[in-house]
């Protein structure tokens, strides 16, 4: 005899799950009881939202499906922001929620919420499992859906009586059985042929790569294509790390806070090779003015992304890695294109930041020092706001999956719990949460989690005592009327200590490096509170709705 809860855990183990992030409650007690002697490691977070973000961070750092668990009603609802965050960034995740017993479903029973209804628009798929015998296949299908095609979160809602039901015989699980779900991995041969022709003939091509390249593990193919055909590369926010920042063909990030070189090159290119991107408005600015003179090749695993925002000349539905391999197979090395590469190089040089000689403690300095100290060995997770954009601009990402940030939803409070998840995925790496003082306070209670399990996550707060990014918009577009964006000073080091976490406040440039070293050398969690210039801005910037070559604040540092 086996209970539903037992069957669930066996299903998770069959999928290779080692760590899950969760929070208990009445409706999931049978699962917690089984977890008590399970080999699966459970990390008790301090808020369910953090469980979802941690599962997400785990998935982004490892490339595997992240798992979180919450009780019914309030627990399940607290997962929502985390699930939506994973959905927007196509992160493979399975969220498991407890539900009131089937006999009480729909009665507004204590702690009931229709979580499958609530999460329908923010999951790739979801299940309400009404019979224990359906659990094995539901778990198998959920992991398959979450981890294949365009990845995303899947929710499994399990009523309490299904967890306690006793089964004589557990039905065997086969492969995933889904008539309506067959992702396309192979690109269409004819379209690939067309792409090859355009790439060989273009005079001013640009590669525009995003999170899809990281998900597909196609960074190597992107670099080979760029080097073979002499094509400059720009990445989206989600694509950071797909190509080393110091690669000679790298233009850096594109879009609202992208580099001049990237934004100009895309504006002037005659061929845009878009791989694993979705032409997000934060990238394209005014869409009509985005790559206005270019033919467009778009490679994506999700057919619905192709042509959604921008008309495409050569659509290729498929896995970025295999499609690029087949394209590479047919191309011969390109000579020439020196004129175009020179032009691009001049943009890069013109915009290169000089050495920072100001006495004030600025974010760029801190991030450059961090980048220098960590070299190849860091995973940078961020919160949302200026801190996120500064990290994207000033930290040199060299490997895929070393940059973890909420791009699509822009969720404040994401970084700290996601960093916890990233640590469990890659315990040998130094994991840093680059935070703003506002964002950090959105999931600051996770100091309890890092203290409890001695999780060596480092929190680097770029503390401007403002909701900085909003303040920046108010400064630029609302006549400096700082309506409700000022935050009073907080003693973050004191708070960290109260939880049993080490910390240090830094106010002088000279103290930056020693403080970072102290944090990185400590074997436990560490909070660094950098009191930065209060009104530093993120530049360059493309105002919302402008074309991406209409940047403001270009020469500022």
């Amino acid at each position, binding site marked *: 005899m086996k209970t539903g809860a037992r069957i669930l855990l066996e299903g998770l183990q069959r999928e290779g799950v080692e760590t899950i992030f969760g929070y208990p409650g009445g409706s999931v007690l049978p699962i917690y009881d089984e977890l008590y002697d399970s080999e699966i490691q459970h990390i008790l977070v301090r808020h369910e939202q953090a469980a979802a973000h941690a599962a997400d961070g785990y998935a982004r750092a490892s490339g595997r499906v992240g798992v979180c668990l919450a009780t019914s009603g309030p627990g399940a609802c607290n997962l929502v922001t985390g699930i939506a965050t994973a959905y927007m960034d196509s992160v493979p995740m399975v969220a498991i929620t407890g539900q009131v017993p089937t006999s009480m479903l729909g009665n507004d029973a204590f702690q009931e919420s229709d979580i499958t*209804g609530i999460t*329908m628009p923010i999951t790739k798929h979801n299940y*309400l499992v009404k019979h224990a015998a359906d659990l094995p296949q539901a778990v198998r299908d959920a992991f398959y*859906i979450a981890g294949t095609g365009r990845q995303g979160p899947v929710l499994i809602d399990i009523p309490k009586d299904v967890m306690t039901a006793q089964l004589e015989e557990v039905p065997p699980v086969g492969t995933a059985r889904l008539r*309506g779900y*067959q992702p396309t991995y192979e690109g269409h041969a004819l379209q690939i042929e067309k792409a090859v022709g355009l790439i060989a003939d273009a005079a001013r091509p640009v590669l525009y790569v995003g999170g899809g390249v990281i998900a597909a593990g196609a960074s190597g193919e992107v670099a080979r294509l760029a080097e073979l055909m002499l094509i400059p590369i720009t990445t989206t926010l989600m694509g950071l790390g797909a190509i080393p920042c110091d690669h000679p063909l790298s233009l850096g990030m594109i879009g609202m806070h992208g580099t001049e070189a990237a934004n100009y090159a895309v504006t002037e290119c005659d061929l845009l090779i878009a791989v694993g991107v979705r032409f997000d408005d934060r990238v394209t600015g005014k869409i009509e003015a985005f790559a206005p003179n270019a033919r467009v090749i778009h490679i994506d695993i*999700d*057919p*619905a992304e192709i042509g*959604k925002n921008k008309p495409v000349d050569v659509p290729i539905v498929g896995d970025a890695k295999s499609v690029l391999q087949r394209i590479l197979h047919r191309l011969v090395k390109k000579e020439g294109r020196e004129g175009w590469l020179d032009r691009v190089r001049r943009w890069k040089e013109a915009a290169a930041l000089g050495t920072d000689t100001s006495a004030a403690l600025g974010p760029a300095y801190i991030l450059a020092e961090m980048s220098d100290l960590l070299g190849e060995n860091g995973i940078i997770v961020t919160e949302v706001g200026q801190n996120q954009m500064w990290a994207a601009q000033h930290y040199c990402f060299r490997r895929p999956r070393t940059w973890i940030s909420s791009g699509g939803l822009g969720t404040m409070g994401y970084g700290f719990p996601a960093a916890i998840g990233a640590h469990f995925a890659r315990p040998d790496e130094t994991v840093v949460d680059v935070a703003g003082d506002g964002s950090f306070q959105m999931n600051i209670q996770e100091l309890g989690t890092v203290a409890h399990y001695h999780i060596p996550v480092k929190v680097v707060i770029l503390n401007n005592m403002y909701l900085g990014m909003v303040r920046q918009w108010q400064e630029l577009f609302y006549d400096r009327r700082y309506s409700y964006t000022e935050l009073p000073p907080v003693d973050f080091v004191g708070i960290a200590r109260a939880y049993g976490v080490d910390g240090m406040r830094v106010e002088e440039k000279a103290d930056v490096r020693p403080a970072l070293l102290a944090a990185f050398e400590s074997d436990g969690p560490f909070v660094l509170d950098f009191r930065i210039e209060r009104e530093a801005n993120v530049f360059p910037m493309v105002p919302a709705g402008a074309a991406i070559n209409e940047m403001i604040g270009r020469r500022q540092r």
Partner: protein
Amino acid sequence: MKAHTLQVLVENKAGVLSRVAGLFSRRGFNIESLTVGTCEEPGMSRMTIVVLGDDAEVEQVKKQLNKLIDVIKVSDITERSTVDRELALIKVAAEAGDSRAEVMQIASIFRAQIIDVGTRSVILEVTGDTEKIDALETLLRQYGIKEFVRTGKIALLRGSKGAKAQK
């Protein structure tokens, strides 16, 4: 903007209708009508969805529908040869006398059935394509339509071939 007719084969499972309907509302697509019922395949249902939009919009609708795990196949049958039908029930004001006689005459021209007669109204039942029902509605409006329900369109391809999958 034009009306496109989509035939959508879906798993017959709880929540499928709300997944499909939710997708339309969430993405701001304009549903003209949606009908659903079981079909020849056990465990599946067939939806006929009439959606208003330009070609690019409808292309996006089809792609988004295809992404739903419970959707087995989506076929755009707008340009193909189909038979399509709607059923409507129309309660028309018709006092005994001249106007009632006229209503009954119109009904017989349209091959509509009179299925209920009250002192001041009659109820007609009519099946046909959308245009026929629209035409009947227009004619009856002068007598006063008290209540009007229609099912929305259902459609099948003519001949022996079924709708081709677009997956």
